[in-house]
Structures are given as C-alpha cells and as structure tokens.
C-alpha cells in the first residue's frame, strides 16, 4: 500500500509479523494487508468497519468533503479541523485524499491509554472513533498511526484528538459522501453486526 509508511525502525512490519493468525486472516481476506496489526487485538471479533473510498479519477479537488466534515463535527469550516484532507495539485489536475482507513487491528486504539473511553471501537459497526470529551490529547494515537501523515490529528490547542468516524450515528451516513458533487467518495459497506 503506497500510503502506508514504515516508521521508527519498521515497527509496522514487526507488528505485522507477530500478529495473531486470526488477525492475519481477516487482514488478507478484506484486503487491508499493510495496515498495522497489533498483537493484542482480537481482530476477528471486530466487524470490518466501513471506510471512505476516494475515486481519484472523478475528484475535482473542491474540498467540499473537508469543509462539510469540519462544519458537521466541529461547527466551523476549516481545513485543519477536517477529518479528511485533500492533497491538491490543481495545475496538474491530480487530487488524493488522506483519511482514516479504519484498520482492522487499529494501532491507534491499542496505543490509547484511555482505550474504550477515549478511543473506542463500536462493537456493532467496527468503527474506531474518538470520544472527545474523554480524550486527554496525549497524542499516543497520532504517534501510533502507521500512515503518513497520521490520520488521527490533535487540535491546534491540543484539546483532543480527532479522526474520521464515518459520521457515526448520522442518519444519511458520512456527510462528505453525501455532499460530494463529483461522486468521488463512497463508504465501503463494512459488515455491520446485527
């Protein structure tokens, strides 16, 4: 996976190799090989979460996704408070999207000292989400994220960490997908548990 980085002496690789058989299987079956697999996670017990897919050939780089995202989650329009980030090259006409991949074995979750209170996994949908009210903004999740740049970020004032949670609980699903005028975004179905 091009977006995946090897950092701090290849930690990601080591964790991958020491992952449990179950986690490896899930990873391979769902095509998320390369996402970091932490040893403690019982990945098979977590439903495969939906995640945002970006169709680069359709994207116009308009950033509606980012502005709608920050407006919905943070009540302001902002590029630095958006859960996703469009990397724009308007003169080349090329655009890519950085957003949380909802790793099946989430190292951000493993790294969180307040896991299940601050960084949580939705048992029903598998979505990894942050409960801002409980977050101490220690930044462990940001450091643990295997992607570059990290898909978990801290607010500028270090009040809490934030990342994409697919607008968990929003009636019409992720707001970025709903308002993308170019139909360049979609949420994968995931396997929500009944």
């Amino acid at each position, binding site marked *: 996976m091009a977006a995946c980085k090897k950092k701090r002496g290849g930690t990601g690789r080591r964790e991958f190799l020491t992952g449990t058989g179950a986690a490896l299987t899930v990873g391979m079956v769902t095509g998320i090989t390369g996402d970091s697999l932490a040893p403690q996670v019982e990945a098979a017990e977590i439903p495969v979460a939906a995640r945002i897919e970006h169709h680069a*050939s*359709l*994207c*116009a*780089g*308009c*950033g*509606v996704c980012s*502005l*709608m995202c*920050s*407006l*919905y989650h*943070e*009540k*302001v*329009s*902002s*590029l*630095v*408070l958006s859960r996703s980030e469009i990397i*724009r090259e*308007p*003169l*080349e*006409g090329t655009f890519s999207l950085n957003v949380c991949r909802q790793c099946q074995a989430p190292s951000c979750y493993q790294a969180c000292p307040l896991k299940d209170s601050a960084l949580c996994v939705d048992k029903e949908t598998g979505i990894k989400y942050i409960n801002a009210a409980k977050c101490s903004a220690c930044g462990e999740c940001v450091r643990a994220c295997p992607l570059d740049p990290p898909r978990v970020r801290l607010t*500028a004032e270090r009040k809490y960490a934030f990342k994409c949670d697919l607008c968990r609980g929003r009636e019409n699903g992720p707001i970025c997908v*709903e*308002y*993308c*005028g*170019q139909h360049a975004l979609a949420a994968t179905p995931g396997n929500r548990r009944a």
Partner: protein
Amino acid sequence: MATTYGWAGKILWVDLTKGKRSAVPLDDFEPEKYIGGVGLNSRIFWELGAPKVAAFHPDNPLLLSVGPLTGAPGPFSRAEVGGIAPQSYPQELFAYSGFGGKFPTELKYAGYDAIVILGKSEKPVYLLVEDQDVSIRDAGHLWGLDTFETQRSLIARHPKSSVLTIGPAGENLCRFAILLNESASAAGQGGYGAVMGSKNLKAIVVRGTGSHTMADPDKFLSLVAERQKAGEWLTGGAQSWGRYPLCGDPVSKEMRTQYLKRFAGCYGCPYQCMGFYDMPGVGKGAQMCAEAWYGFVGNGSSEGYWEGNILSQKLGINNFELLGVMVFALAGIAAKVFTKEDLGLKSIPHFDHAAEPKLGSPKVHHEFLTALLNGIAEGRSPLAHGVGRAAEKMGPAAMRVYEDQYPAYGYLSHHLKNIPAAIHWATDTRDPFNSCHDLMFFGAFPKVADHFGVPSGDVRIVADWEGIDVFYERAERSAVWCQNHQSLKNSLPICEYASMPGNYFNPPQMDIRIFESKILSAVTGMDYGVERLWETGERIWNLRRAIMVLRENRERSGDTISHLWFERTVPNRQSLTAPLDREQWNEALTRYYELRGWDAKSGHPTKGKLEVLGMKNIADKLALPAA
C-alpha cells in the same frame, strides 16, 4: 462586536513603499452595511478619499476583499479586486473584478476579510501571509516567470498555500493583465494585474490554518440539506455552461471526447463548473467561459482554441479583451482600415490561411498565437494597452471599428441585448456582465420575471441567444433589480452562476433573495431579512455612484453607450437587434434615476436618499441635491 461570525474581523493593510504591514479592524469600515467584496472595497476606497490618481500611481490602492460567506462550503470562495482600473478607456475609472479558486477561502482562514496594498516596492517582491505572520519577500527569481511556473515555485517553497499571481503581462503593465489563482480562476477585467505589476508585486501567497465560524451552523446545514433534498443545491443549470468550450462544436466535441480529464472549479463548491483538459504538446489547465476566446474565431481548430487559452493564462492576459483584440483586428484588416503589420503581426491565419480547413495547421495557429500574445505580454504589441488606446493612435477610421464593438468604458460588448442591459452598461464603470446574467434569465423566463416584478420577453436564451424584442417599458426596473443583486453577489459573496434569479425558485416559500437572506443570516447571526438584504445591495450601488460623482465627476451626460448603438444595428451577436431610440432612451433613463431616488437632471444621488439608506456619513462629503 458586530462581526463575530462570518467575517474574520481584520483587514491586512500593506504599504509596499515603507514595507509596513498591519492588521486594521474591519469594523472601522461598516461591514454590516457594506458586507464585503465590492461593497467593502468601495467603502475602503471611499475612506482613502477616492484618490484622483492614475492607475499606476503608488497611491492607487489594490483592494482585495472576500465576504462573510467566504470559507463556508458552497459557491462562496470568491474575492473581489478593486481600485482604479487601467483597462478603462478613455478615462481610468474605479472598477471591480472578481475571481474564485482557493485563494479567497485560504485568505479567510488566515484571518482576513481584505487586503489593501498601497505604495510601490523598489524591487520585485511577493507578499507572504501565513495566518498572522505577514512578510514581504524578494521575488527577483520569480520576475519574468509565467503564472503557472510562479505558482509551482511558490507552492514548493510554501506548501499547502494558495497563490494569486501576475504573469509577464502584469509585470510589463499590459492594461488588460490579470491576476490568476490556480487555473482559470482569474480577476480578468480591469487590468488589475498591471496595477499589481506597477507596485512590483509579483504574487500574494496565503496559507490559513484558522476557521470560518457561523452563528448558526445547524441552520446553515439544514438550509443546505433542504435545498439538496429539493434537488436545487448546486445541481447545474446555468453553471454547466462553462464545463465545455463555449465556442461550440467541432471544438467542444473534440475537447470533450479526447482531452477532458475532469471537472474543476472553486474551493468548497460541489458543482465545479469548469472543465480541466490536457492536450499533449500544448498543456493542461482549466477553462470555463471566455477561455474560449480564440475558439470563437478559430474556425474549428481545437489546438488553436486550447493554446489560446493556456498561453493567455500563463502570460496573464485577459481572455475577454483578447476576444475584443481578435474582433477588432479581423474587422479592421478586412475593411482595410489597417494592416496586420500595423498590429505588429507577420501573419494572421484568418487571412493568410483562409482557404485551408480550420484556417491552417496547429503550427500556423501556434505561430500566430505566440507572436500575438508574447507581443502583448511583453508590451511590444500596439495592442498591449487595449483596443481602445490602440485604435485612438491609429486614427478615426480605426476608432470607428473599435466603437462598433465597444459600447462604453473600453470594454467589449457583452450581453448588451436589451434596454435594461443598456441602462446597466450606461450607469456602470466597466462592462457589468461579469456578474449580471440575471437580465438574460428574466428575458427568457416570464414566470421568474413576473415573480420579481420585472419585464420579460426581451431576450431569447436558447438557440443563438439573439435578442428578439426591444422595449423600453419598465426596463429601469430590471436594471435596478440586477444592479442591486449584482452588488450583493459580489459582496456576500456568492457565485454569479449559482445565484441566478431562477435558482431556488419555489415561491412564495423560496427564491434566490430568500435563499441569500437566510444563508447570510445563519452565517452572520444578524437578521438580514429580504428587505434589509435588498437595501444593502442598493446601498452598495449608491456608494459606487458616490465614488463616481466624487472622483470621476460623473453626470447624467456620462451615462450612455457609444453613439453607434443609437444610429444602427451594431454587427455583433452580443448586441441589440435594433438601434436605440434617443427619445425613449432618455425617458427610460429618467425613470431609472427616479426609481433610484436620484436627481434625474444631474444623475446624482440625493442627500435624502443616501440618508434613508443609512449613508449620511457618505452624503456629508458630497455636494448633492437635497431631495
């Protein structure tokens, strides 16, 4: 503070002569009354005393304003440039020019509603704005680079920033030089690129890590959701015009099927009204409307069309005036008023390759376009100062060719197809149709026109866009409506194409005025009801008129268009289909002043009217008729 939401609350004030940068409180300029964009630019210009200096004088301010909606998701990433316009002819006038792209949004996030640039740097510089950190940097290495190269170079140095730049045309004081952000997002008319060049300012680089705040984000989101549900939230219509070359087939079809890569447009707008094309060997970039300037006269050459667009953007030249250059050159040479050599050209495909399909090979067009555009951008071409000034030098016969196509102020005829449009032209300081296609809409859609109380039936929008009937009755109503709305569009701001009278048309619950009123209220937290909103548009127009009176001695006698429009049908598809009738015209103009509440004899606003509009402070500085 009045401007807690929507506005950033600060104006970045830069004096290039002294190298000084400061943040000035926005509230000093009555933002609740003049909003932003054109309104704010005009208010700042008024405060500066509407200086009677030449466009290239250091005291001519280069004004750049966004508005309270800029930064919110939607068709709001727009900025307006203002100042004394070098393109205006024969007199340089205070005018305006808008652009979109990402720069306006970035400026808001950096914490500014406007940038005011005064003075002149000794050597080439660029302005770097990173939130509150503002510096003036050496641009010696950028001087001479084209607009694409400049953007690439500056973004490499300042990642994630947005760049507004001039090309060689602006550096060399071409009077129709543009400011460009990304590709095809240009402040085109006015020649403000040359104002920037005259200040030795190559570019403005902005990176903003702040936010746009709204008083009521939930209301904003529910408004958008409601319109999305109704199928009205930026779903096309007028906006779709610009995605494909406007010059029509075969160019449009060839470009669409072979070279279209994706859609493009302004930041934060889901519609994306431009097309992004990549033609190997020529280049890639965006186009939306006047970018088809060469396509209109290129007789089917896609290569010529595309090179015309890419090269003009890189060199930083106004496409609309280039269309005027072509119309003027072709008509003048055909009528033997002047020769191609008089225009500094060795060969013109339209004459030298007239018998060949598509007026010759791509190479022929390439050679012509590079000769013409480089000559203009480098100041060598007699046309570098615009068609009006070129014609004047060549004499009366050439002036006649110019007047055929240029109704007023040195701007090429554009949508001048009915009497309201003629009134609008006559009372502005540049061609008004950067931002007032509303009239065409009214002409073609009686239901919409009736709803807003204006006449209809004088424009046919489909087929070939020719006017079908010229009538004077109630023409002043459309002109006033459109001017007020134009003032709002360019101040809130909201995209012209996304705010036509037929958008959000579900009366009585919803129409474009109600929509704008609700959006502005949700964002600012101030109650801009429809009446207050409309009065704001009217106020902005009155301030512009006050500037015309104070700085340019504007009188009723100056409110006119070229005499040719009264004498005959002008051979231009952007023009009226019958000559204006002098008597009926004068009556319509009188009714216009009366509807405006101005003095019909002088054409000046009255003290009483300005006071009603809350503009006593403005009225006090003018010697105006009382009632």
